């Protein structure tokens, strides 16, 4: 295929990918009475930030953004710690029933979320945890996927390193902290990226377990907003823009690593 044609194809594709974001931004600053106008107005006369004002009046939106950020960070951190420790046990500590227990972890990996949400909701209700931060975090504390991924990484660390540390008098905790963890940093970063994205984008579980606006995360907040402003697309798009910006900023900085992580996941 000709060079020019190739550039044209990928360039057009890029426009298709970017346009919905640009249109969301334009809609969000269009005055309310002009939003539904046909033909659409590409250069909105007297662009206004009214939609953003309305958004912040309806929902505690900054709090919702903050919720998404700290829940995402906390869930990522918790998963990293619990998974790395369990992965170390499965890779380096011999104990009876290790293989069987690892098989149990793998089995939970195949469990679709829909199987779990109903009983999980009932469990949370039993302990009066519906509509709490804890309920949002609970199912993400442990990650079988993380244990699997990090165990693979730890197994690739040569045992000579452990042994050298043992000769220096190090126990398992020190080997874990100072030998193994630094050597599996790429795998930890990959897992952190997947963990944060999963939490940031999660909708089904928050939808079931959260009712009050002050505990909502962004996807649920946006869906709620859409439920209230079904035809006021400027407000809904304003919310979408606000929720895309933080992850976009992170993405610009971590783009190479994010893409490399995803690319690797297919090369197994």
């Amino acid at each position: 295929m000709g060079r020019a044609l190739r550039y044209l194809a990928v360039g057009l594709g890029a426009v298709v990918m970017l346009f919905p974001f640009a249109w969301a931004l334009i809609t969000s600053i269009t005055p309310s009475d002009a939003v539904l106008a046909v033909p659409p107005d590409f250069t909105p006369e007297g662009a206004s930030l009214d939609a953003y004002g309305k958004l912040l009046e309806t929902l505690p939106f900054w709090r919702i953004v903050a919720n998404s950020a700290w829940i995402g960070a906390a869930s990522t951190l918790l998963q990293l710690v619990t998974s790395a420790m369990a992965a170390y046990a499965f890779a380096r500590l011999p104990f009876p029933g290790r293989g069987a227990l690892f098989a149990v972890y793998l089995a939970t990996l195949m469990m679709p979320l829909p199987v779990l949400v109903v009983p999980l909701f009932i469990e949370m209700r039993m302990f009066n945890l519906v509509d709490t931060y804890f309920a949002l975090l609970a199912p993400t504390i442990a990650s079988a996927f993380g244990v699997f991924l990090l165990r693979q990484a730890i197994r690739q660390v040569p045992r000579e390193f452990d042994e050298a540390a043992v000769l220096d008098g190090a126990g398992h905790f020190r080997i874990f902290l100072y030998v193994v963890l630094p050597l599996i940093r790429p795998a930890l970063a990959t897992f952190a990226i997947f963990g944060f994205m999963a939490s940031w984008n999660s909708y089904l579980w928050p939808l079931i377990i959260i009712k009050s606006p002050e505990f909502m995360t962004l996807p649920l907040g946006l869906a709620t907003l859409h439920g209230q402003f079904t035809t006021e697309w400027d407000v809904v798009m304003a919310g979408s823009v606000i929720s895309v910006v933080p992850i976009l900023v992170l993405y610009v900085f971590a783009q190479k690593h994010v893409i490399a992580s995803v690319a690797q996941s297919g090369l197994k």
Partner: protein
Amino acid sequence: MTLTAAPPEAGATHGRRAPRRRWRHAGTVAVFLLPSLVPLTLYTLVPMVASLWTSLHEWDLITEMRWVGLGNYVELIGDPGTRAAFGHTLYFIAGYLPLVYLGGLGLALLLNRAMAGRSLLRGIYFLPVITSWVVVALMWKWLLNPASGIVNWALGLVGVSGPGWWTDPAWAMPSVILASAWKDLGFVMIILLAGLQAIPKEYQEAAMVDGASAVRRFRHITLPLLSPSSFFVVVISLINGFQMFDQVKIMTGGGPGGATQVVVSQIYDLTFRYGRAGAASALSWLLFALVLLVTIVQIRGQKRWVTYG
């Protein structure tokens, strides 16, 4: 150490030998394992067992559970609503998978050569992948708005009268498919691009020396050597496709007239709209069984078309 099935080198880690003391590390093992095992038990294993148990009952989440044995399963298998939900899910997959695979393959092939701005383009194509489903669904619902959406306006410019998209039973599922393919295109592209770049250049060069045409090189070298990546894309897409929910919930709510009611939205409605937690649990296990079956069939069948080399 001699009593355990652990690999021999595991004992060597510690230098000392302590035969017959299998639980030598019990304390250490507990400290490393429990932080993940306790939450996994509480929030995954217990719900799994509870879900199986619930599926054997009729339960509205409020009054006493009533034992019905396999009644829920029998009812669901004969139920037109359930069949429709599975049908809609399959319709989604049948539209989504070819679109996202062929689109992703095309893009990967285009970007697999040195070109200016390649990493920027890759970043742009990947943008929808990191965007949450709710945002994507809302953006597309607005783009595909029948009366005031920009897509129908653009279609109008070229003399096409746009359809009712998500408000029209016939066009609702295509709308969902379109938004989904747009979101996942970058993911598929990245996976396939990594696969393409792992193919040694020597193969293509040797074939060129032998005078093989571009089409033949693609069919006999690129496609077979890309098959592990393709396999990964198909397996992941099917697993996700069977469990899709967010986009439907936001774009159509399962409508209009139930035209986009998929299996997971049916599970959600059974539980929270119709108060039938037992039937919902049974349906979720039917879905799990189907996903498992499809995945096993694919893994078994991969010998026929996947080349590892």
